[in-house]
């Protein structure tokens, strides 16, 4: 007799801890510039090197950015908060403690709506980044011949955004992280570059039988350097946990490292090996008092956010959600788009142009809308010329756009220079249409028999004859007239 094993269905439970490097000019506790790619150990001073006798001085811009992010994520901003020391020994941490926030984070109790579902945000806190180690003879400190340390990154301001375990799939985790990145970019507080580490995701993953109300034991996954990795790491970790549970094992709470090459997570340190951080209030900094006025001032600087635009674009501009998504991704593109509309352009047409040829151009030239020469007014004008019939769509795309984007020459100027103005003179076109119809008798016969497909051939031939400048509407009208 074989036992029938009932297959348990599992639910994935995910919480994300996102570290975002803030785009301040200077570090969080000293006046060294935040500048990546500088020679090692050049952007350092006694303070960020943790020299004996130095003291931290809080950069207010960091606080402002943290508050701004908190407000955008619907958090409560605490009126009083403090910094704490998180203590552990590591050579990239000059003081062997990190100034962070423990039990009084600057922002709490927020949420982010991802595809209609609310993901709660537990807290946002400020802290300083560590330096970078370079190992010789190994990719880890352990086992290397020697290690060098670069303290340029030390003291770069970070905020850590901690979600509640409300996420239920790898895909949802990705969506949350992408939206979060987009918001951080809209707020202009973080570059949001996962590959370069200006945004880092630690993923807390556990599984539980569907219907269960208690959480399973979680593992924290580090070293997730792209959205693709976020999905791969989460999915492989879920599989690993399922296998353990199904073979009768128990999940051990630990920190795991995602390995890009194998696509698997490996153990980094167990709970037993976890540090006792010995948090205590930072005595070198006075507690932070945040006035309601300051919070209000910051509130004023928050632009319309991508999640808000995503709801508004279909409603106001008649775009579908995919079109909206492409335009909203980059705040500058979205703002460009809105400016074009404000100048009177047709919303749908403007969207098509930006999503289509403009985006293609930017991809080809590896640039973005800010670095293109075209102004919103110029695009609005171009769309106006097309609308009025001064030029046709195709000519605009092939003959004008490149120069407009690359040099910023007004379309009117280009039209004049290149002689691109659409031929709308009926009598001039009539001769050409006549000629084309007469020199293609077979096709003409088809057309007369009602085979409308062939019409395009004639229009094309006329275009060829007129260097593409003929007005398609007029050509069509003339064909109708002449075959009657």
């Amino acid at each position: 007799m074989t036992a029938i094993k009932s297959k348990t269905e599992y639910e994935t439970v995910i919480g994300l801890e996102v570290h975002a490097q803030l785009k301040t000019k200077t570090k969080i506790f000293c006046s060294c510039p935040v500048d990546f790619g500088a020679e090692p150990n050049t952007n350092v001073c006694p303070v960020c090197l943790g020299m004996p006798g130095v003291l931290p001085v809080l950069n207010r811009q960091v606080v402002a950015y943290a508050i701004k992010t908190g407000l955008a994520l619907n958090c409560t901003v605490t009126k009083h908060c403090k910094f704490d020391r998180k203590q552990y020994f590591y050579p990239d941490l000059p003081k062997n403690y990190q100034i962070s926030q423990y039990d009084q984070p600057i922002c709490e109790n927020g949420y982010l709506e991802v595809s209609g579902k609310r993901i709660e945000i537990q807290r946002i806190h400020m802290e300083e980044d560590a330096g970078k180690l370079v190992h010789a003879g190994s990719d880890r400190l352990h086992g290397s011949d020697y290690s060098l340390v670069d303290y340029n990154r030390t003291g770069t301001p970070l905020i850590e955004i901690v979600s509640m375990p409300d996420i239920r799939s790898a895909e949802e985790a990705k969506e949350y992280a992408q939206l979060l990145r987009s918001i951080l970019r809209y707020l202009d507080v973080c570059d949001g570059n996962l590959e370069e580490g200006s945004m880092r995701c630690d993923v807390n993953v556990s599984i539980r039988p569907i219907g269960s109300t208690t959480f399973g034991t979680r593992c924290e996954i580090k070293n997730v350097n792209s959205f693709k990795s976020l999905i791969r790491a989460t999915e492989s970790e879920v599989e690993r946990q399922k296998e353990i549970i199904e073979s009768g094992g128990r999940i051990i709470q630990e920190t795991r490292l995602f390995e890009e090459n194998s696509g698997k997570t490996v153990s980094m340190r167990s709970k037993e090996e976890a540090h006792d951080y010995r948090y205590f209030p930072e005595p070198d900094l006075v507690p932070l008092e945040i006035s309601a006025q300051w919070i209000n001032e910051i509130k004023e600087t928050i632009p319309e956010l991508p999640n808000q635009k995503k709801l508004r674009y279909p409603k106001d501009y008649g775009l579908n959600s995919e079109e909206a998504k492409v335009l909203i991704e980059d705040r500058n593109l979205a703002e460009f788009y809105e400016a074009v509309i404000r100048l009177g352009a047709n919303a749908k047409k403007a969207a098509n142009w930006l999503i289509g040829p403009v985006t293609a151009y930017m991809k080809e030239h590896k640039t973005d809308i800010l670095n293109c020469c075209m102004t919103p007014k110029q695009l609005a004008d171009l769309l106006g010329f097309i609308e009025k019939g001064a030029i046709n769509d195709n000519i605009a795309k092939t003959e004008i756009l490149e120069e407009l984007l690359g040099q910023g020459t007004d379309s009117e100027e280009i039209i004049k220079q290149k002689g691109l103005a659409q031929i709308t003179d009926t009598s001039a076109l009539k001769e050409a249409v006549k000629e084309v119809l007469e020199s293609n008798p077979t096709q003409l016969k088809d057309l007369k028999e009602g085979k409308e497909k062939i019409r395009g051939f004639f229009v094309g031939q006329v275009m060829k004859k007129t260097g593409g400048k003929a007005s398609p509407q007029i050509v069509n009208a003339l064909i109708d007239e002449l075959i009657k």
Partner: protein
Amino acid sequence: MTIINKSAKEINKLFINKEISAKEIIDSFYKQIELIEPKIQALTSLTKELAYRQAEELDKRISKGEKLGPIAGVPIVIKDVICVKGFSATCGSKILENFIAPYEATATGKLWDAGAICLAKSNMDEFAMGSSTENSAFKKTKNPWNLNTVPGGSSGGSAASVASMETPISLGTDTGGSVRQPASFCGVVGLKPTYGRVSRFGLIAFASSLDQIGPFARNVYDAALTLQVISGYDPKDTTSLNVEVPDYISRLNVNTVKGKKIGLIKELMGEGIDAEVKKAIEVSVRLFKDLGAEVVEVSLPNIKYSLPVYYIIATAEASSNLARYDGVKYGLRADGAKEVLPMYTKTRQSGFGPEVKRRIMLGTYALSSGYYDAYYKKAQQVRKLVTQDFLNTFEKVDLLLTPTCPTTAFELGAKVDDPLSMYLSDIATIPASLAGLPSVSVPCGFDSKNMPIGLQLTAPSLSEELLLDAAYAFESVCNLSEKLKDKHAVGVV
């Protein structure tokens, strides 16, 4: 002309009046140092290069007819826990034996700007942890009044150098009494300002929430003068207080104590206080009454918890502040370690002395998960109670009076193996440190062995002027100054 026994005020006057050059001033003091230092061992290094550079500059300025301030031309010794740019700052520790400060402390920067001259760095208990300066990794400083006794600590070198006329003034640091206690033992004036009155930038931290830089001098005026120069808000230290600094020196007057109410703290006049010390304090009370002050007994019920509270908070902060000495970046790195963890442990094992290790372990324990609430958090709560006791008492009195120390200077080695009894030496100084209050030790008498006794006055927050006024008035009627002057000279030469 003998310069070394002159006060800072007198030296400045001679210099301003061009009766003596800055170079001659420091020549005299370096001569005295050469003579006396082998006996006293108060200094860790001389900063001659800086001193002569500063002297030359001052002499140039005075010859050009520039108007210089009240501390110009006055030599000073700096405790080796304060950074003077380009010179070593050992903290009395092997771990920083070769450390050269790459920047200037705010307090010393202000001194140099005001024309003071840096003579030397002074010996101290390692990382300011101790009450006898015997915890220095380098040398044992002797008390100029009796070379078999300790100078007190942790600023023992700064106190002894002033008492033995190696310098007219010096800077120390006070975390739980490290200026006031050695001042008391060495028969000099030592002042701990309000927490935040003087910038801590460049003061190598022992316990951040308690550390303050304070002056030593052979009289109250010189202490006031030094405090005047080093005080004030510093944007580099956000715990420094952004309030104006009053004029401490021009208001000093013998009549200012008249009508003031002084509280004698009951809890610090009882058990554990040496009978001769108690007697000297009682005499001092009479002198204050003669000056027109009213002296009443007051009680601060929570003051008895000060010592344990202090040893939890100070060690907790120290365990964190001293984590940076790991061999990675500067200071000592022990040889022979092949991995990072052994490098840490070997470096710290060989670099730190026993008292520092003891305090790091105590502090680490107090902050550990599961113990934090019972120790550190509880200690912070009791610290608030002690502070509240002071606030309540200052509703009734203007100043508080206690002995600075339970005893006079003890013999070298007497308490080295008994940390608890050593800790008790600070029982009267620690409460004001916990409350962040300004407090001064002034010589008030001698015991039967002719060792100086100190009287401690404590004032409300940011009331240094009140403290200095009272100390100045007391000094003027105590009639110790001649005896102190003689003794300073006789004791060591």
